[in-house]
């Protein structure tokens, strides 16, 4: 009885979610589209010296100031200066973050059915930022958890 009910629920009311995608180092990542304020072309960054390498500086976003975070550096990937960074602006806990990424992808819609927990074998430096993965037809989307990014920022700057 119970089993029947639960399967029915998942069958009929399976949720779809939209993710804004981007790539870093050729890998596909996604952030819940509801949390993304905007995606912009490269903006002028005021360098923040003496700050950790992943804090790229500040960006003036029409009067609001956003902190630019280099995801490459945060993920401990090799820095790549050849690419002009696109920005994904998100708001977490009232903090305006501007995530610098390599390329911007589409907004994709995926079903909850295709969600899976982060595989155990993913290296820890990226795993801590991941909520899980979505299987899509041609690739696997790694979902970034913004809260954990903020947490990690707090931790690393302390």
């Amino acid at each position, binding site marked *: 009885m119970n089993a029947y009910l639960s399967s029915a629920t998942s069958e009929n009311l399976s949720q779809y979610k939209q993710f804004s995608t981007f790539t870093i180092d050729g890998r596909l990542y996604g952030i819940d589209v509801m949390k993304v304020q905007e995606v912009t072309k490269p903006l002028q960054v*005021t360098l923040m010296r003496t700050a950790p390498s992943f804090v790229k500086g500040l960006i*003036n976003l029409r009067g609001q*100031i956003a902190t630019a975070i280099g995801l490459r550096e945060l993920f401990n990937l090799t820095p790549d200066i050849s690419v002009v960074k696109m920005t994904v602006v998100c708001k977490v806990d009232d903090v305006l973050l501007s995530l610098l990424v390599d390329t911007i992808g589409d907004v994709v819609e995926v079903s909850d059915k295709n969600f899976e927990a982060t595989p155990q074998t993913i290296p820890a430096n990226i795993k801590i930022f991941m909520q899980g993965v979505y299987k899509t037809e041609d690739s696997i989307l790694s979902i970034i958890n913004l809260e954990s990014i903020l947490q990690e920022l707090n931790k690393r700057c302390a």
Partner: protein
Amino acid sequence: MTNELDEFKTEILEVLDNAEKALLEFDQLPDNHRSPPLYDEVFRAYHNIKGAAGMMEMAELQSHVHQLENVLTLSKSTASIPKHLISWFLKGNDATRALLSNEKYSFSYDITPPGEKIVIPDSGLEESQSDETPPAEFFSEMNDGLEKITSALIKIESDASDRGLLDLLYREIHSIKGASQLFGFLGSSQLSHSMESSLESLKRNTSSEIQIGHVSTLLLAVDLLGQCFQRPAPPEIDKEINFMMKLLEPFCEVVMSEVQLGEHDRSVSEGKNQPSVASHPSQTNQDSDKTDTSIRVQVSLLDRLMTLMGEMVLVRNQVLQYSSKTDDLEFLNLSQKLDVVTSELQEETMKTRMQPIGNVLNKFQRVVRDLSGSLDKKINLVLHGVETELDKTLIEAVKDPLTHIVRNACDHGIEQGIARTNAGKSETGTITIKAYHEGGLVIVDISDDGQGLCREKLIKKAIEKGIIDAANADKMSDREVNGLIFAPGFSTAEKVTNVSGRGVGMDVVKSNIERIGGLVDISSVPGQGTKITLKIPLTLAIVPAMIIRCDNDRFAIPQVKLVELVRVEKSVIEYVQGIPVFRLRGNILPLLNLKEILGIQNSVDNDGAIYIVVLNSDTHNFGMIVDEILDTADIVVKPLAKFLKTISVYSGATVLGDGNVAFILDVLGIAQKHLGTGAHADLRSLSDKYSDIATNELEMREYVLVNLGSKTKHAIPLNFVSRMEEVKTSSIELSGVQRVIRYRGGILKIVSLNEVFGYQHSKKDSEITQLIVAVVDENLYGFEVDQIIDVLSTRDALDCSLFSHEAILGNLVTAEEIIVVVDVEKVHELTRPMKIPKTSAGRRRILLVEDTDSIRQKVAAELTNSGYEVEEAIDGVEGLRKIAEQKYCFDLIISDIEMPKMNGYEFVKKIRGMNQLKNIPIIAFSTKNSSADIQLAKSAGFSSYLEKSKGKLLTLLVSECLTKNLRKLA
């Protein structure tokens, strides 16, 4: 009142939520796991609620939370909360919430673990609400009624004859009485009954009017009624009700007796009574007009306005920047107008958020009154500067810290009455709160005249609590020891009371004030009292700043931190142990290079000029080398993301005129990080700044160094010096024997310091004379010196052990030489004019004729001080009478020209007509200053003429005239 209550409730609920979160986190931990931060969180929450409840007079809530707190303290040593207690606390929180919303609740204070629990039926501590809870409508109805009564009373004050209002009043009070009886509010029904009966006779006797005293008593009674309808009712309300009823009694009688007196004697009785309110209609009308000129606006709207204003300032800056590049005159003109209007708009917008600090301070009257009652001490609260305004958000932010400080002062600061009388102080303790503006900050001083802080006790406690170790204790300065009060968990109260003593508080005060960019300091004299100083910025949103450039980046430095800007050749930078320093007016200024701070490679090593920004951090100044100084601007401060706060170089960011982002440099943070002033030194320097005890050695003094006809350099304290001048020796004139020079439209008396000290005048024939213009005691002097060398600022103490002349203050002993410090006041005394004419026996007599009282008294006082005997007269007629009465015994006459009855011209003509006074010097002292007036006065017979605006010179002129006259006689 209701607003305040709502605010209070939201706040409490928030704090409770925090406590709940911490409790739940404890629950996740293994049993009896230590976690001091979590423990503190819970503890602080309860403590804060208790305090706030006390202030809002919610006794029930207060005692409930006090219980919770007490249980929590049991496990203070382990900093853990046993599992079985967690749910108890959670239930306690629920009960707190219920209490807040006036709901029924049931909570057992028994903390025995459930397993061992012998069944104790909820032990009577359960909320003992009456069986018949009045519906919520009852309360709102009563409050409405009370509001109507209040407004009716206020209206009646301005128009006592309005019978309609009286009827309304009577009706409303009556219905409150009825409703109170119905729902068992005994106190309020009694009170409203006596209010009603005090009005009874007034109502019956249509010709009598209500009195002021009556109205205000009734207003008080209304307040009290309001309290009756609060749940839970404040303690001792019954007593207050009885007292109020006694207050109301006389009015029943007065009115009765008035009625009995009857119509025939009515005028007499009215005359005897307090003035009827009807006699001040104009005043009250004005008040009511005033209320119409203000409206209520949502704070959120003001906030929005402020943000928009900030953006507008940015746009204005952009426009200005653009306009500087264009040649379009029209546009330049418009942008300038925009600039002016925006600045004004900004100023006014800021004002909308400004509120007098009195809004908060006045509440403490009540707090102190109530606390003094519960602590059984007599405490008086004195408030100064309640009108001082600051930003609303800041007022909110200082409210809690101030409450803590005031409560602490009442509890720990002020001693019990007996202890005070034994110490030779008045039995009543005084707490003074003083608020004032100073240098763009609002300063709030809270001082008490209590026992002060005891060094030994503080140290003992601090060692006990492990805040410091015994080895360090002896080395600590008094200020450092006082600063211990701000350490978390510190309390010296021997007993934990309802009021304070648990050691939560002062650390919160400090952190709260520092969060809004303020400073807290404490200073204390044992036995005499404690003073806590809060320095709060006026507003947080917009600050004036200096924009500088370093490498390719621009940075903003808040003007408050900026002392001065210096541009020097690179070659003058010296190195001490490899560290760059700069001699700024003889004193060593440590230098930091902003490039190094920011970790920028110092690539271009130019030999040209460098810019130094002299900054102030706490007590010391330091210089920062920057690449360029750009501009000043009002910047809108944007906070940095929280995780960036640990980078102590920046305190915020701002958007510049061109739309780029610039960082705001954190001067304090830079100083702490790069000047090696650690937390400990920080503590000391903070307290040093405000302490008024023993600052003499540390105080920076400045002197002007001069050469005189002596081998040693002489120093004149800079605080006397107003200017340094070079004048042509030929322009020095003589006034009598006195050498003077025309200076700013007046005459400046020249005193040769060489003559004063009896030195050789070395350069008598030089064309240029160097003068130091000094103001002593409101007199302007030009001190003639051989050469002005330099300005010296030093912290060195003055060595007063040896001096060879009475006008020498002492010696400054520097490494290279000894410098003699001139006692300017003594020089002034030695050269004071009155010394010259003291020739004939007795004092010189002056007749002063002047019709303006204040001027006459001031001049008379000055002359008397200078050793003359002064006779005063208010016009020419009286002057002549005085002359006749005193048989012409005057040496000099000073007279105004414009006077009633007989003016100065007539007066002086009359005098010149008298044989005895033909040659007496007469000074015209007038506001007229045209040459025609002077001519007229001279021809009328005045010997000298002085404008009133130069009144300071009068004494000088008097002595001159007297001397001249003496010589003439000889």
